[in-house]
Each structure stands twice: as structure tokens, then as C-alpha cells.
């Protein structure tokens, strides 16, 4: 089977590293990665623990398809209680780090306690050591990775680290691996920083740690599934060529591109920051922003963007360290740093995104928090003197300066680093935080896409687009076309999407495969990988179990059905332009039905029958 059946428990307080057997009973109920790590967190921690307290745990977890030949099988997740939301946090990353953890022989690493001094974990197959990180504290993720590889004379070490944002308690700090892949959302990097854990460096060379239960069946299924990805227009052509950024013009045209802190729903500068614009030669230097696409471990889609900036751009003209190729903007980042702030300078967005990768913080929450600050500034609530410069809508200079200040933890950057909920509350306008459960929206407006409104309101980790992705049916027609303005039928479709997504995440593969793969494609690989009876029905029930376990954790943490809501702006202020002009998010029409199809009470609590049916 493709579990290694071993986990590593690292007690940072005691400074110990201890291997122990994986709980296989739980693995069969929760599969791996997101689901299984959540089960461990639920069983081992008090849900009311403060996220940055010593009692919280931080779990790095792979899935049974991580580190196999399954396409995109390189994913890992970081699961903890999130400081941005106070809810369950599960942040998922690609790159090569996750597969390396499996190669070293571990399904999961659980960090508990808090180290007295900064440390990093060096894991080389069976040898795990906590080493002094005093010389790394204060360094960026990029510097940290280079210094660790140099210190151990091993360029093939895979490193996941926090930058200064995680050290400084930025509530949306992420964990960056392989320079520009990140467990980016919900503040998992702040939890790592609170534990004085700077980095995890892994080198795995074991070939005997795991193997498919049915090798021939597994490789046949993997080959067939790869052919499906290659033959699909989205995964075989669209994503490799234009990346996720091709959505910028799509979502603007359908009237669902939140603009200037959701005041508007279409952005006049959308084309200038789109995937198409990234490929065009710049007027300034005749070179395109996009250098090439990029793939994570085992991926046959390769949607990643690698960009080079215009060396003469104001943000980097005196900073040659940013003149090389690095991780470019994906759609969500380009939207948040761009449309949400009214900024249409693609080079400025690229630079801000470089900083997010370099110092480990989430560009979605960064951009949306700056957008909220710009609205507070427009209203006269934030003064120029507090910030040191003006926060006019569309100011690329302000965006760049605030990104730098957040990375460095100085000046008004310390305020931005607490996210939009804290920011807007502290200026007396909590209603202007475009967030759910404290986490900011990604790049789709719930007034234009009603299913996304329901998805945001019900997501267990706060506003999120990768807990269901109703954009697929509402815009792209995958697997079938639904009217984006309608509320009918959205609740059962969202439930199915949420449950399947939980399966995909828990398996250790990338959600983007589902533009081409359905449940049967994924089941066809899990069955021979693990052996036993892994029917599609069992997997979908497993996905539902994961979703309900996360929900139960949140309820135990103190959240209630009242938190399944949206900011007043989305519920009351109609869209001003586009095909959805006049629409608001009609959450009240969908939420009761959603609770019903989930088997929850009218207050949003899983009924005893649901709990029993799912074996929770």
C-alpha cells in the first residue's frame, strides 16, 4: 500500500523526534493528508486552544498518492488551528517537498509544543534532528533554503520554511517550499513561527517505504488517467499555456470580478493584468512578463507561471536581486493585488507576489487587506500621516510599499499583517472586511456567482475557492452548465463538490485534475494503490466524513451557524454593472437547503443521525 505507515512526532518543547506507527484504522476512514491530519488534530488537541499557543499542533501531511507516479502526486498539506480565523486551517502546497517526505519514509510529521530557541528539523530518511536556527532567524524563505542546502552540502534537500512574516506573527503568513510553492492561506506560517520552528529540510532516498498493493493495476490506472489529462482541453492545453491567469478576462466579462474592495464587480484594468498580458512583449523593454510554465512533482499539467520583471520598473530598478526568473502571479494573486486595489500595473503585482514568496505570506489576504485600507483611506478613516504616504485607489506605489513593509514587519505593515478583519474593526468599520470567518475572499464575487456565495459562507476554513469551486459549473460548464445567477440546485451541487474536493485533497493530488478527472478516475488509482475495497461510494462518504469532522471541530472551537454568512456589502449592495447588474448574494435562499442536504439541523449542527451515518 502507498501509505508508509509511519509518522514522525516532533516535540519542540522537549527537543525530541520520535517515529511511531500510523493509525491505520484512522487512515482507512480519512485516507491521508487533509482528512487524516484533521483527525489527528481533533483527537490530540483542545479545539478551544489559542492558535498561537503552545498547545496547538502543526501537522505536515501527505496522502497515499503523494510521491507516487500518479499525475500531480506531489501535494502535502499543513493542518492546524488557524490564527486568522480561529477555525480549522488546512493549507495545501505542491512543489517537491511533499514527495520528499514520503521518500524519507513518513506519511506525516506532527509538531507539538514550542521550542525555547529557533530550530529547524533536518530529516534524512530515519535520522531526524532538531538543529539550531539562530543564524536563520530574520532571514527570508529564499535565504533560508539556500543556507540550509549549503550548510549540509546537499542541493537536493527539499526545504519548507517561514520567512520574516511567520516570525513576526503576520496572521496570514504561509509556509514556502521549493522557493515559490506555498501552503499559503489561513496563517499556518504564523503557527510555525509561534513554535520557533524556522524550517523543515528533508532528503529521502528510501525505495522500500511503500509500494502499490497492486503494482500492475496501479500503473495501468495511472497511465489511463494521464491520457485523460493530456486529451482534455483545459488540462492538456489551456492551463499549460495560460495558467490560471486566463480567468481574469473570463470572470470580468461575466461580471464577477470583485473590484476596489468589492465596491464594483468589473475592473477596467482587467486585461492589463491578465494571462494574455503576461505573454505579450512589454512596451517598456520588449520582453514578456512570462518566461515559461512550470510543473510540480509528477504533474503532467504544468500550470505554474515563471516570470521576469522589467528591470527598469520603479519597484526593482535598484534591486537586481529581483531581476531573475521567479514565481509569477497566478489568478488569485493577480486579482487580489490588482483588481481588489484597483491596480493595473502587472509588474508591480509581480513584485508584490515575489515578496509574498520570499517572506512567506498570502497574496490574497495581503491584496484584499490593502484594498480594505484603501477604502478606509478614501473614507478619511485612515490618515496619510499614519501610513506615511497616500493610499489612493490604483496606486501601484502604495501597493509596493505596503507589501515591503508587511514583509519587513515595520510601520503600517504591522497593521496590514493582521488582515482585513482586525484592520477594519480597529477603524470602526468591520463591515468593510471582505471576509468570512475572518479569512478574505478570493477572486470571485458572490453576487455574480450565487453558488460561490454559498461556498464562501460554508467553507470550513473561511472564504475559500478551493473547497468546492462552483466556478466550474457556473462559468466553465464543468461537469455541466449551471446558471450563475440562479440559486436553485446550488446546495446539492456544492455538497458534492465539497465532498469530492475533500477526497482529492486527502489523496495527495492536485484539485486542478478535476477539470478533466471525475470521481471514477481518482478511484481507479486509489483502489490498486491501497488494496481492499475502495469503491467510489466509500470515497464520497469519506469526503463527507472529512467535511463533517472539520465542521465539528469548528463548532467545538466556538463557531456557530451564524458564522456561515457574508459581509453586508454582498448581501445588500447590488452589483452595479455587467450581466448580474442589480443582483445581491441570495444566501438566505440557499443556506437552509444546504443544511438540509448536509443532514444538519436548521442551526447548522450535524444531526445525531448524520454523525452516526458517517461514523464520527
Amino acid at each position, binding site marked *: 500500500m502507498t501509505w508508509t505507515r509511519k509518522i514522525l512526532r516532533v516535540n519542540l518543547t522537549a527537543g525530541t523526534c520520535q517515529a511511531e506507527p500510523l493509525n491505520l484504522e484512522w487512515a482507512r476512514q480519512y485516507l491521508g493528508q487533509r482528512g487524516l491530519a484533521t483527525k489527528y488534530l481533533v483527537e490530540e488537541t483542545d479545539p478551544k486552544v489559542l492558535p498561537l499557543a503552545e498547545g496547538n499542533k502543526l501537522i505536515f501531511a501527505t496522502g497515499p498518492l503523494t510521491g507516487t507516479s500518479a499525475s500531480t502526486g506531489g501535494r502535502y498539506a499543513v493542518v492546524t488551528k488557524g490564527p486568522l480565523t480561529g477555525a480549522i486551517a488546512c493549507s495545501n502546497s505542491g512543489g517537491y517537498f511533499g514527495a520528499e517526505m514520503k521518500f524519507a519514509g513518513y506519511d506525516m510529521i506532527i509538531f507539538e509544543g514550542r521550542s525555547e530557541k529557533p530550530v529547524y528539523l533536518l530529516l534524512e530518511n530515519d535520522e531526524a534532528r532538531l538543529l539550531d536556527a539562530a543564524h536563520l532567524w530574520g532571514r527570508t524563505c529564499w535565504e533560508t533554503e539556500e543556507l540550509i542546502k549549503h550548510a549540509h552540502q546537499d542541493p537536493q534537500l527539499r526545504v519548507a520554511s517561514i520567512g520574516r512574516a511567520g516570525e513576526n506573527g503576520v496572521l496570514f503568513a504561509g509556509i514556502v517550499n521549493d522557493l515559490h510553492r506555498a501552503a499559503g492561506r489561513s496563517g499556518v506560517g504564523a503557527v510555525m513561527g509561534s513554535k520557533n520552528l524556522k524550517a523543515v529540510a528533508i532528503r529521502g532516498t528510501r525505495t522500500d517505504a511503500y509500494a502499490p498493493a497492486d503494482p500492475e493495476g496501479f500503473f495501468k490506472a495511472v497511465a489511463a488517467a494521464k491520457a485523460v489529462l493530456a486529451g482534455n*482541453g483545459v488540462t492538456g492545453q489551456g492551463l499549460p499555456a495560460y*495558467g490560471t491567469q*486566463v480567468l481574469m478576462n473570463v470572470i470580468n466579462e461575466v461580471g464577477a470580478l470583485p473590484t476596489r474592495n468589492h465596491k464594483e464587480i468589473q475592473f477596467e484594468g482587467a486585461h492589463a493584468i491578465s494571462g494574455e498580458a503576461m505573454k505579450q512583449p512589454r512596451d517598456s523593454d520588449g520582453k514578456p512578463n512570462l518566461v515559461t510554465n512550470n510543473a510540480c512533482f509528477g504533474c503532467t499539467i504544468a*500550470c505554474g507561471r515563471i516570470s521576469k520583471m522589467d528591470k527598469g520598473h520603479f519597484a526593482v530598478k535598484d534591486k537586481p536581486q529581483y531581476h531573475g526568473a521567479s514565481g509569477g502571479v*497566478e*489568478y*488569485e494573486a493577480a486579482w487580489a493585488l490588482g483588481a481588489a486595489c484597483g491596480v493595473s500595473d502587472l509588474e508591480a503585482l509581480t513584485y508584490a507576489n515575489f515578496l509574498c514568496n520570499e517572506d512567506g505570506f498570502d497574496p490574497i489576504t495581503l491584496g484584499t487587506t490593502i484594498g480594505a485600507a484603501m477604502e478606509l483611506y478614501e473614507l478619511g478613516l485612515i490618515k496619510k500621516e499614519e501610513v506615511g504616504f497616500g493610499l489612493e485607489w490604483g496606486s501601484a506605489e502604495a501597493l509596493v510599499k505596503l507589501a515591503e513593509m508587511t514583509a519587513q514587519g515595520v510601520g503600517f505593515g504591522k497593521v496590514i499583517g493582521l488582515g482585513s478583519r482586525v484592520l477594519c474593526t480597529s477603524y470602526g468599520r468591520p463591515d468593510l472586511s471582505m471576509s468570512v470567518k475572518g479569512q478574505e475572499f478570493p477572486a470571485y464575487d458572490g453576487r455574480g456567482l450565487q453558488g460561490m456565495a454559498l461556498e464562501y459562507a460554508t467553507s470550513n476554513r473561511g472564504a475559500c475557492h478551493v473547497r468546492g469551486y462552483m466556478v466550474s459549473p457556473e462559468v466553465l460548464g464543468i461537469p455541466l452548465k449551471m446558471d450563475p445567477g440562479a440559486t436553485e440546485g446550488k446546495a446539492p451541487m456544492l455538497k458534492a463538490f465539497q465532498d469530492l474536493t475533500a477526497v482529492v485533497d486527502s489523496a495527495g493530488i492536485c484539485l486542478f485534475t478535476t477539470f478533466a478527472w471525475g470521481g471514477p478516475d481518482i478511484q481507479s488509482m486509489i483502489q490498486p494503490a491501497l488494496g481492499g475495497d475502495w469503491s467510489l461510494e466509500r470515497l464520497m462518504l469519506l469526503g463527507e466524513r472529512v467535511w463533517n469532522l472539520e465542521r465539528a471541530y469548528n463548532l467545538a472551537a466556538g463557531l456557530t451557524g451564524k458564522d456561515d454568512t457574508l459581509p453586508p456589502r454582498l448581501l445588500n449592495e447590488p452589483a452595479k454593472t455587467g450581466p448580474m447588474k442589480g443582483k445581491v448574494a441570495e444566501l438566505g435562499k440557499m443556506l437552509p437547503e444546504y443544511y438540509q442536504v448536509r443532514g444538519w439541523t436548521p442551526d447548522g449542527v450535524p444531526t445525531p443521525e448524520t454523525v452516526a451515518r458517517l461514523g464520527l
Partner: protein
Amino acid sequence: MNITLKLFATLAVHLPPGARRSHQAEVEVDAGATVMGVIQAFRVPLGQCALVLVNGSFVAPEALAGKVLAEGDVLAIWPPVGGG
């Protein structure tokens, strides 16, 4: 009559050369022109028309031939795309 034709991603090559950078052009079509008629007139491969919007609203593949355009309409077309 005039409409705005927007061809995104790899479809931009079917626009007049001067319009490819902006991915859109004001074009003159016959009164009563259909979406399918415009797709054919600009030699956009039908198999590449994965997402078709008129004024931001979705037009299903089976409705392309019957969807009549009006003066000032915005017709936008993409090949297969996805993201998130």
C-alpha cells in the same frame, strides 16, 4: 451593424492583426447575424469555442446558430480554459 468581438487566449490570431494585442475589435456584421455566423466569418475553429458569452451571458453550444446578435453586442470567446 457593429459589434465588439473579443477573442481571448490562443484565439486572438483570428482577429485583425492590429487588434490582437487588445484581444478585441469593433467589427461590422450583417443585420441579423448569428453567433455561429460570426464564428464562421472570422474562421474561428468551432471546436476551440469552449466558452462563448454575449454581453457576459453564456451561450450554449447548441444555441450558437440561433443566437441573433444586436447592434453594440459584445461577443467574447475562449478556448478550453480553467483555473482557480
